[in-house]
């Protein structure tokens, strides 16, 4: 030790301690001098869209987003993708006249008609349908269950777009083939129940008109409402809108269920009975262009088949998938959709007419109802002119038509698409009603979404906001199917529907039909403070 320290550099104990002290002092001073500059405060290194970055406290023109209840059965939102562009609010407020049309503070509900237009407008896909694919795959995989599926009219002219095909490609057969490959036990067509809807809704209309004329409907149900004009009830977004904002006009709403719910109810009764299957073993899936259909299927009263089977917990329709979800499911299974060979729908509920397929377009329900309504009123098939009722076709917000039916007189109808447009008609009808004026229309078709179901909230996404260009392509295809491809163009000529009445339901609007195919509505005006202007 001693020799080593002698050889090393000399450093006295005192010098070492002094050095240590000085270094410590210098360190302390440096640290303290650093405190003079507090450094950058945390936060503020990100971004917000340009409209939010301006001096002053001016209100921003396009701002925020729509409120979405986490329990919403139709749509969900992923905050990680939300850029607060404000487009969902634009759609909700100006296209559908929902947001802004109720007072604040809110009550115990986040007002939403479940239409899903916000999902179509959302540029980042932050808002999307509630994904039920996993649930459907699970039931398909369960061999004890008999899984049936129905496809809405509008799906067959849109799903091809998801596989790179031109807008409006007609792919009905390929879609059926894909569904069979996915493992569904039976593939049915909502066109079948659209024709069924026309039989019910047309009969109801004739009954209402006859009741208004002072007579009694031939096959009218005891408690059937008689108010005119009759409103179509196929669009669940529209139905909920009416329940929220125009509950005083619910007596005008056709009591007919939508085609989706009619097929669901018939599948678990008539079809189950015919095939000898326990309805509890049947799982009913619907492929829809619509997010509101998910809500509709979950409505508590949509359990007619269950009530009949003594099991009210059983749903008429168990799962609803949007067109987009079906496309994802097909992609997930690696099915080359474009190369599929077309397949036909399965029997008992697979036949549909041209009158059913035009349900996909705004004005289509009206046109189909007029074709069969003419038959119901006169006993004869309609003249050629009623097969191309151009007055109710197209993308105008409100359309009107008037036609003369022999032996009846003038039939006045209106069609509206997009609920902001619907308000024009509804306010007019409300005013007429309050003033005691006679109704100016007999029948009005309301569709929640602009263009009708073909541009529904569950359809393949296009441009943002959705363009009329794609709507027109899809519209063209719908009317092409009706005019050129459909074997029949009249709902009352649907053989399978006629068989259903003959074998099971009896007659349109009869007791059995009322138990399975008609429904009731809920006054939802207590869940909000409605306003007429945003």
């Amino acid at each position, binding site marked *: 030790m001693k020799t080593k320290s002698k050889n090393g550099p000399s450093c006295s104990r005192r010098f070492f301690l002094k050095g240590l002290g000085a270094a410590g002092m210098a360190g302390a001073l440096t640290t303290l001098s*650093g*405190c003079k500059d*507090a*450094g*950058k*405060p*945390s*936060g*503020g*290194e*990100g*971004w*917000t869209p340009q409209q*939010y*970055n*301006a*001096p*002053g*406290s001016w*209100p*921003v023109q396009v*701002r*925020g*987003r*729509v*409120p*979405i209840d*986490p329990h919403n059965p139709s749509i969900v939102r*992923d*905050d*990680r993708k*939300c*850029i*607060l562009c*404000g487009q969902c*609010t634009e759609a909700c407020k100006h296209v559908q006249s929902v*947001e802004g049309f109720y007072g*604040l*503070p*809110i*009550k*115990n*509900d*986040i007002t939403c008609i479940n239409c899903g237009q916000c999902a179509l407008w959302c540029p980042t896909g932050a808002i999307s349908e509630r994904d039920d694919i996993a649930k459907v795959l699970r039931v398909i995989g369960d061999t004890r269950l008999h899984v049936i599926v129905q496809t809405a009219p509008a799906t067959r002219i849109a799903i091809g777009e998801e596989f790179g095909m031109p807008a409006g490609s007609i792919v009905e057969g390929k879609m059926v083939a894909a569904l069979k490959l996915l493992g569904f036990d039976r593939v049915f067509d909502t066109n079948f129940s659209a024709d069924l809807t026309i039989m019910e809704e047309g009969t109801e209309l004739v009954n209402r008109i006859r009741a208004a004329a002072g007579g009694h409907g031939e096959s009218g149900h005891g408690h059937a409402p008689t108010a005119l004009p009759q409103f179509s009830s196929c669009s669940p977004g529209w139905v909920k809108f009416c329940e929220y904002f125009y509950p005083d006009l619910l007596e005008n709403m056709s009591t007919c269920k939508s085609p989706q719910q009619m097929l669901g109810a018939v599948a678990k009764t008539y079809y189950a009975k015919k095939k000898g299957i326990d309805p509890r073993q049947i799982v009913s899936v619907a492929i829809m262009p619509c997010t509101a259909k998910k809500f509709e299927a979950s409505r508590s009263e949509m359990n007619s088949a269950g009530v009949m089977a003594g099991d009210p917990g059983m749903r008429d329709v168990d799962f609803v998938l949007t067109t987009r979800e079906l496309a994802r499911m097909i992609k997930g299974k690696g099915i080359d959709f474009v190369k599929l060979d077309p397949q036909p729908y399965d029997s008992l509920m697979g036949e549909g007419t041209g009158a059913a397929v035009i349900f996909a377009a705004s004005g289509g329900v009206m046109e189909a109802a007029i074709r069969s309504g003419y038959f119901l009123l006169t006993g004869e098939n309609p003249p050629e002119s009623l097969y191309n009722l151009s007055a109710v076709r197209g993308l105008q917000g409100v359309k009107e038509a008037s036609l003369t039916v022999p032996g009846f007189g003038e039939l006045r109808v209106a069609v509206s698409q997009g609920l902001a447009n619907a308000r024009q008609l509804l306010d007019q009808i409300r005013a007429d009603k309050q003033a005691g004026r006679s109704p100016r229309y007999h029948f009005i078709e309301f569709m929640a979404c602009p263009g009708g179901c073909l541009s529904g909230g569950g359809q393949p996404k296009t441009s943002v906001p959705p363009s009329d260009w794609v709507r027109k392509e899809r519209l063209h295809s719908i009317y092409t199917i009706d005019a050129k491809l459909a074997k029949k163009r009249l709902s009352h000529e649907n053989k399978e529907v006629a068989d259903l009445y003959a074998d099971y339901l009896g007659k349109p609007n009869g007791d059995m039909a009322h138990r399975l195919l008609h429904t009731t509505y809920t006054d939802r005006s*207590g869940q909000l403070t409605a306003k007429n202007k945003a």
Partner: protein
Amino acid sequence: MSKGVLVDMTKCFGCGACTVACKLWNEKKYDEVNKPTVGEAAQLVDINWTVVSKHDVTDGNGDAAWRFAKKQCLHCVDPACASSCLVGALRRTPEGPVVYHPDLCVGCRYCMVACPFNIPKYEWDKSFPKVSKCQMCFTRVVAGEQPACIAVCPNQVMQFGDRDALVREAHRRIADNGQLYVNHVFGETEVGGTAWLYLSDQPFDRLGFKTSVPQESLPAYTWQILSKLPAILLGWTAILSGIYFINKRRNAAAEGKQDTTGGPQA
């Protein structure tokens, strides 16, 4: 002029745009599963500087209703966190925001104990954690812009401006619409006043607000004692020193006596 925000909770429908604006502007992570920003389970945590909490209440007609409360740091006029901070990492700015400077923070977390509203959070799952809380978009406020959460609100629930004017505005609204609002502006006097002021049609405790806080500023409260500390310390030192010297002298005198009487020590 000190800035403030007036929040009218009757206008909020719970879209949560403000929480997204906060995350975008401050680059905070999203964890809607474990740390939701909107709803019943929404809580201010390290990554959530602002949340919108949902509350089931009864409205003026006696009907069940939902109310949403936007929560974030209230930015006290006399902040206890800043007063408790040993190194000045938390400071109230003349513009109003109480801002946190992470470069100065030593991680003692006194601010978390001091805050009467339990606002500052700690980044517990980071290796080098920092304190985390709303900065009231300090850099935006300095640039003359409103905080991000306020800019994006679709219902203009929040109004940004000079605090004094907002206090008057709040009382004007209560006077104009007394049947709607409860007669209280939360934040006007709580802990001596906060930059964020709230109007509600519900008692504030039902919306998760801490109403039991004192009405005077907390630093002022502690100052009543702390200001006397130097005098107490000096006085106590003087007394103890005096006793020491007296004892020393007495001992020395006693020892001197002993020395004279006793024999020489070893």
